[in-house]
């Protein structure tokens, strides 16, 4: 029988724990496939965050370290400095990267650490039950912004790609989405490119992936995908914000 599809060798056989309709699983798959296709799975070292993806170390079929909340870029720095030939990546959510870990991500970028960051932005704290994130949209209701996030007092969402693109030493900064098949294909291209740049010692690369959280958004999986398209993307425009090599 002809094999038409199989699970990536970059993933283990451990069943994913993510909620139905959440796109973390798709993003895991894209990262895993990229590592395999680039032939670097055997020298990949993942750094897992605290948040929904805390068990990423069980899913990626490579060595891994679990970091304290927000500290993945610091942990990755330590690993990469010891093993410059390893392909080191962090996989972080918006609370981990854009709130508690803001200093670590900015300074890893500032130093031009030759590592790759997969930044999953779903505009909410998922694992802890739907609290407001720094990326929560204005007006978006969460358990800690029950009336909707207000500009005054809670501020407007942080745009990480736009911010990190201003840092001299970043090699590649792009925002992608996985809510449609064409977007997913483009997302994989960006992730692969980020890893390729690391393999070429070009420095810090970050791919922000807009992701869904049907559970905490209070939407069905299909509605959640539509919410990404209609509500998130206008606030978080997709595209390449920095590319040292030019082009997309």
């Amino acid at each position: 029988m002809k094999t038409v599809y199989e699970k990536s060798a970059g993933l283990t056989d451990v069943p994913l724990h993510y909620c139905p309709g959440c796109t973390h699983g798709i993003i895991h798959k894209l990262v895993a496939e990229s590592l395999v296709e680039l032939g670097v799975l055997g020298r990949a070292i993942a750094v897992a965050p605290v948040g929904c993806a805390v068990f990423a170390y069980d899913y990626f079929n490579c060595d891994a370290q679990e970091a304290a909340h927000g500290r993945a870029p610091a942990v990755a720095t330590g690993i990469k400095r010891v093993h410059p030939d390893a392909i080191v990546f962090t996989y972080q959510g918006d609370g981990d990267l854009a709130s508690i870990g803001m200093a670590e991500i900015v300074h890893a970028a500032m130093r031009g650490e030759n590592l790759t960051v997969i930044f999953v932005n779903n505009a909410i704290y998922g694992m802890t039950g739907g609290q407001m994130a720094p990326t929560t949209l204005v007006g978006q209701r969460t358990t800690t912004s029950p009336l909707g996030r207000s500009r005054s007092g809670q501020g407007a969402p942080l745009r990480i790609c736009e911010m990190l693109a201003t840092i001299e030493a970043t090699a590649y900064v792009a925002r992608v989405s996985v809510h449609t098949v064409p977007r997913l294909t483009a997302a994989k291209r960006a992730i692969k490119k980020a890893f390729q740049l690391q393999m070429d010692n070009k420095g810090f690369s970050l791919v922000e992936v807009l992701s869904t959280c049907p559970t905490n958004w209070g939407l069905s999986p299909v509605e959640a995908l539509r919410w990404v398209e209609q509500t998130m993307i206008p606030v978080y425009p997709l595209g390449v914000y920095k590319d040292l090599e030019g082009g997309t």
Partner: protein
Amino acid sequence: MARKLMKGNEVIAAAAINAGCRYFFGYPITPQNEIPEYMARELPKVGGVYVQAESEVAAINMVYGAAGAGARVLTSSSSPGISLMQEGISYIAGAELPCVLVNIMRAGPGLGGVQPSQADYFQATKGGGHGDYHVLVLAPANLQEAADLTQSAFDLADRYRNPVMVLADGMIGQLMEPVELLPARPAVDLPPKDWATTGTATSGGRRRVINSLYLYPDQLEQHVHALYAKYAAMEHAEVRYELHQCDDAEVVIVAYGTTSRIARSAIEKCRRLGLRVGLLRPITLYPFPFAAFEQVIARTQAFLVVEMSMGQMLDDVKIAVAGRKPISFYGRTGGIVPTPEEVVKQVQALLGGGP
């Protein structure tokens, strides 16, 4: 190798490099800046890496990453910075990673001051971060010992897969003394780092994961029990202390690090006055040398604990003495270093004056 006049902070840094440490992550803070400065200057010469982190929080997590990757790694700081590192130290202990931490203590609480202090004893020996864990704590009293203990610290860390702290203070950090640095000599019988993340291609395809997360309580309890079996082994094998002029001592001073030096001067003065005084000097603060007290407790009339704090090691001395003999305490704090003369007065008060 000839003796060299060196500053305490530089001795610690040089000893670390001697011990095979090639990675240093840190953040500037007085009075330990000569350590990162030495590392920034010297590590690149031996193929090592120095990274100035954006904070002590980042620094300790870089240590976590590098230790998990299998390297000999060092960070150093002083009290407020060590407080910031506590989260990371708890993770490192939980994930069983070997690394060496240096705390050149200054006075607290809060921003406190920059002068010498020993008020981080509780933090160093009783946890500091969250959860059930211990850091092995070594307290040098002179610079030769700072060199030797720093070198052993890396072996101890590797042997037990546990963080080891060299606990000194601003006086030892800033002091210069002649030191002979031994050539690198890592212990030969250390366990292989077959847990370090190096990429599966180098480990025969077997995945290695560095982690301290155990969501099932029975698994976490089992993990903590395993940690405590390790601590029991340390308590059995790694206790270090010094007894000085205790054979006939009627008063035994208990002091470590800087205050043990002051005690030593005080004892010399006391002996000249005909007062029989000795010194029990813990070198490992965790594991604490409880058993050493049994060697002196029969003869001594009283213990005098001297610290640059309001009385922290005092609690461990109370546990060791267990009410069998009186214990008095003399402490200066805020960055004030007690003088030998002050300590002599305390002894005289205990023994009812000189002859």
